[in-house]
């Protein structure tokens, strides 16, 4: 992980003092609602349906065990014993008091955590592949680049009042998009040129929300030295020309689309020409310093996997979990273990204080003291030795984190929805639970194979419904909750926006509709053909017929 220098820590302490004073002035009536709104949002604080919601930044999803324990303390002391893993790898508290937030920030700052720029019209948390650094398919670890971007974005004076929120993701896996760069305001794809030098293909103008679309390539190959000048150029063009009259047309995607990628590139190149080669150029020394923070842990060599093999042969439940919830690792003898936070009856992505403490202990014992949040609202222990997998599984099972449903129909991604969020048009959580209860036969769930189900309670799309193979969007019709279904979205390969099926459904119809979709798939699939492939082969019509016919 990135290790804070004295000055990084000082910055956080100064931030706590600043926000404490802002809160004090608001409570004393020295700041208007509107003025404080912008300030608290830049600190991740929303005023929600029943209470404020505080979004805590987790840069590229990485959490050290000490941070997990502090989060557990915060959740215990200031919330109702639960927090929520968000689809941008952050942590959300749903019940803090506005007055307590400065104290919460103080505690978080003690473990190098904060809520800086987790909301508001500024550059948000930088996200990446949750398996960064251990993914055997990546060409290099993307996290140093994320950290370099994070520092540039933190309190960047020119880009604090953008037309709209701004999300950046970095991907280092070729031919796949685990960081969803295609649907980010800026997507950064790490590449190597023929000499093995690192550079970036830079995408701009992707996004979900209202008017979802995938981005366009603006920079074909930006040498690593030029990463920040290039990003700054994209941001400056957006800051100057992004729409500020209509909130719904204010994202960069609208500007890129209106100008066309060619014109946008031209404007960026003009800015970049001025910055290129200047003092912002990254230095080898700095990149080396940051890379040094993400060193390979001290893996054991020659991990004996005999016991693992016999456990896999003997224990069917363990075998199923191993094949479903663990992932291949760069290092021989190791696996990345995903903790599924999707047990039926539990809010997708919710974790309790006790569980956070337990995950911290597991991280310390089995995974070099680190865990990660995933954009599918699960968590990861990225470095577990094969000879400890059985032990880890047993402990995860006891904690309720070993439901073997990763990437399957019940591993549902859902925003907090109308139960908690004041932006939502409809509830998400009961819809997720309804589907999980309908598909309660784990053999059948496995037989169905990979299936991404994503639910958003409104078109802000926090549940990423556009990129679910099956997407469910809550809509409001004359004060009543309805749900619109999309099919064919993808967030598993290169991002693709799903297609609307047709008229929306009432809440109690949704499970039945999903059931019909699944039955049609089962009837039409070829051998071992995943849902999304069947959909892409046969198209929307048969599904429509099955549901509306």
């Amino acid at each position, binding site marked *: 992980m990135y290790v804070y*220098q*004295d*000055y*990084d820590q*000082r*910055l956080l302490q*100064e*931030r706590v*003092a*600043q926000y404490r*004073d*802002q809160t004090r002035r608001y409570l004393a009536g*020295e*700041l208007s609602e509107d*003025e404080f709104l*912008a*300030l608290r949002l830049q600190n991740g604080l929303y005023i929600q349906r029943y209470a404020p919601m505080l979004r805590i930044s987790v840069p590229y999803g990485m959490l050290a065990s000490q941070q997990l324990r502090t989060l557990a303390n915060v959740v215990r002391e200031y919330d109702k014993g639960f927090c929520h893993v968000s689809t941008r790898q952050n942590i959300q508290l749903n019940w803090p008091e506005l007055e307590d937030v400065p104290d919460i920030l103080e505690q978080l700052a003690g473990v190098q955590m904060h809520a800086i720029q987790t909301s508001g*019209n500024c550059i948000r948390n930088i996200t990446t592949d949750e398996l960064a650094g251990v993914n055997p398919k990546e060409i290099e670890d993307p996290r140093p680049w994320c950290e370099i971007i994070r*520092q*540039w974005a*933190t*309190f*960047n*004076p*020119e*880009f*604090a*009042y*953008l*037309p709209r929120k701004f999300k950046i993701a970095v991907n280092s896996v070729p031919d796949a998009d685990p960081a969803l760069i295609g649907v980010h305001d800026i997507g950064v794809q790490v590449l190597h040129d023929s000499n093995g030098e690192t550079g970036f293909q830079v995408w701009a103008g992707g996004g979900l929300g209202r008017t979802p679309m995938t981005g366009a390539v603006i920079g074909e190959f930006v040498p690593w030295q030029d990463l*920040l000048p290039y990003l700054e150029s994209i941001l*400056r063009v957006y*800051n*100057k020309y992004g729409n*500020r009259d209509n909130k719904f047309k204010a994202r960069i995607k609208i500007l890129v689309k209106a100008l066309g990628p060619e014109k946008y590139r031209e404007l960026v190149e003009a800015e970049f020409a*001025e910055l290129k080669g*200047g*003092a*912002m150029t*990254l*230095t080898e*020394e*700095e990149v080396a*310093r940051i890379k040094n923070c993400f060193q390979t842990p001290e893996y054991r060599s020659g991990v004996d996997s005999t016991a693992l093999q016999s456990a896999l042969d003997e224990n069917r439940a363990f075998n199923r979990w191993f094949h479903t919830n663990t992932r291949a690792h760069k290092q021989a003898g190791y696996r990345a273990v995903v903790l599924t936070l999707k047990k039926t009856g539990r809010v997708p992505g919710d974790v309790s204080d006790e569980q956070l403490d337990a995950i911290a202990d597991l991280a310390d014992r089995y995974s070099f003291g680190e865990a990660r949040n995933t954009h599918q609202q699960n968590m990861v222990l990225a470095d577990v030795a094969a000879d400890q997998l059985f032990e880890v599984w047993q402990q995860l099972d006891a904690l309720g984190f070993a439901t073997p449903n990763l990437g399957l129909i019940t591993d549902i991604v859902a925003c907090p929805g109308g139960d908690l969020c004041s932006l939502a048009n409809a509830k998400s959580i009961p819809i997720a639970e309804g589907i999980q209860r309908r598909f309660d036969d784990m053999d059948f769930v496995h037989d169905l194979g990979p299936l991404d189900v994503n639910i958003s309670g409104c078109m802000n799309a926090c549940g990423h419904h556009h990129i679910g193979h099956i997407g469910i969007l809550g809509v409001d019709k004359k004060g009543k909750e309805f749900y619109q279904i999309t099919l064919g979205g993808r967030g598993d390969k290169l991002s693709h926006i799903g297609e609307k099926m047709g008229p929306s459904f009432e809440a109690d119809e949704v499970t039945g509709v999903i059931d019909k979709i699944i039955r049609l798939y089962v009837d039409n699939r070829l051998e071992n053909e995943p849902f999304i492939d069947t959909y892409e082969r046969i198209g929307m019509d048969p599904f429509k017929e099955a549901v509306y016919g």
Partner: protein
Amino acid sequence: MGKLILDGEIVDNQWQRFDAGQLEQESLPDSGAVIVPLAYWKEHKAALLERSDPVGVCLEPGEEPVDLAEDLAALPLVAIHFPAFKDGRGYSYARELRTRYGFTGEVRAVGDVLQDQLFYMHRVGFNAFEVRADRDIEQALNNGLRPFTVTYQADVHDNRPIYRRRHELEEVSDV
């Protein structure tokens, strides 16, 4: 006469600013420092340059420094108007004035100018702030201008980002 923050001190505002609406109703006073809208400047440039007292130009959002580039050498002051503090275009304009056009005169933030944005404004090149009249300008100066001693990016005061001046910061933190 109002107050403003200029180069880190609270001083009397020596300039009178006229917006387009005012200039439709009344004409400029014969003497005194004035700030006029960009369109007015363009239309009356010759006459304005004749004045014995200084003239500055105010940019609205959507009016960029490039529109004024050729005139900057003749101007002691460029104001940038923030109709609402959330409209951040002015930050890019100030930065361009300083770094692209090398403008060394006064760059003044006017309009919805508040304590909590001063730090950012200062870093992108504003050196004068007409803090909104209903707010405490002393508090804004004391608490708003430099809430942070650490910055990661380059800015108009130091074109080196953190990775070219880390060692200085580390020395400071040892004190």
